[in-house]
């Protein structure tokens, strides 16, 4: 589950980046809320996040998280996988 902890850390950074964009449109806000919901699901799975320092963009952070999941498919709940993939597609 350490991989999931790292995924969680990347999603936290991506969430912060998405919410930091302060435009008038709601699309990025909606994506930020979806990323928050993914964090809540990881909490429900009792995953402890690894601290990932800010620095990457939202798309880069989500790509890093997706890459980690891809390398640890065996231990990854499908619901987490599908939600992350949806976010990667929308943010990218």
């Amino acid at each position, binding site marked *: 589950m350490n991989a999931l902890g790292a995924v969680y*850390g990347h999603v936290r950074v991506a969430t912060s980046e998405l*919410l*930091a964009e302060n435009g008038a449109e709601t699309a990025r*806000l909606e994506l930020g*809320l979806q990323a928050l*919901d993914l964090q*809540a699901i990881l909490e429900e799975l009792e995953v402890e996040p690894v601290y990932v320092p800010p620095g990457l963009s939202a798309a880069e952070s989500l790509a890093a998280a997706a890459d980690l999941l891809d390398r640890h498919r065996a231990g990854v709940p499908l619901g987490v996988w599908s939600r992350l993939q949806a976010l990667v597609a929308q943010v990218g």
Partner: protein
Amino acid sequence: MATVADLLDRLHRQAWELAQQRVDAPDEALGQHMRGWVKVAASASRALAPLHIRRDLDDVLDQLADGGLASPGRPDRRLVEMSLTYGGIGDLLAAEQVHVELAGYTSRSRLHTSMWAGLHTAARATLAVAQDAGATEPAAVLAGLADITELAALIPPSARENLLDRLSATPARDATLKGAVDTWAAVAGEILSSDHQVTGYALQRTAGSIAMICHVAATTTKEAAAAGLINTDSAHQATDSLQQTARSWRRAANWPPHLRLGGRTTELRQASASLDRALTGPQLAGLDVSERLTSMWAAVNLATLVGDEHRVMTSRLATGGGLWVSVAALPPAYQATHPGARRSGWVPQPPSSTATSRPLAIAARTAAAALRSAATDLDAAVEPIQTGPPRRVTGSETAQAWETVTPPTRRDHRDLRPESPMLPGLAL
């Protein structure tokens, strides 16, 4: 589903029919009327009480409701029907207590006036019967009731229309926008007021949901102005205010990655997702513009309550060391004095190291204040929406002849004394 406006229309129609009656046997008719007034007075008292406008009718209504002026027997059918209508209004107001309290003095005063107009017309009808019958005591009581309520009955119906007219008996279900907002507000309010249930997700997600509500409310207000339903100046102010408030809540939702407060908040996640669907999906789009605006007005008002809970909890956690912080983000001195702490782990935030969390409290306070202000601006913008068919509103039309008293602020109206001497007709 019936709205308050529907019930008021029915009430006034019933009172009108009562006033049109021709009585051949006044003694017999008076007995039936006075028995009918037992029911009307009781249900009208219950419907008027939550509005907190005037209580100077209480003694008269109590006297009629206690049955001292009525003899046993069958009550007048039309007065019984009026009592049922007052009962329906009372039930609706009781079920929507939060919206009633937040509606503002002007709306509550206008609704109060509409109900008094019905009482006045019915009292005049019974007074005529009592005078024909030579019954001095019932005549005196009903003359008193008619006198007190006369001014309300002289106000044109269009000047009595108000936001509360649109409250409906629609059951709260998640499938409706109202149901989704009510459920979200209830779940969020409970979690944000509990030290044991609150999580970082709850605080961030609630702030984000409020931002979304403000965004949608701003867009809807702009559409209503473009459609000519509301004054463009007040709509512009409300839209700007809501958009700024959305940005404030978005900032409040954005926590730095080195702070967290873990835990499960499944119910809020589900309620928040339902709210998102209701705000951005076909439920809202399927309503006409005035219905959408009224729905978003209600959502913004509920959000102010949730926002206040958010502000209080965030302040406590962010300034009192209630969050968890990444060891890696703490100063090297901490790691030096706590050799057992894993650098990759999380520890309770030392109360002495809240410098990075304090901005969260400031952001929440700023956002909550902005939301209260935006809700007031939205109240002013939405006020001219009438219960009738949509029509174009010009700037001069919104300066209504009855607008002679500034209503109390959102916070102050709860402190209104029941014996407030303000006449409803003059307070519009």
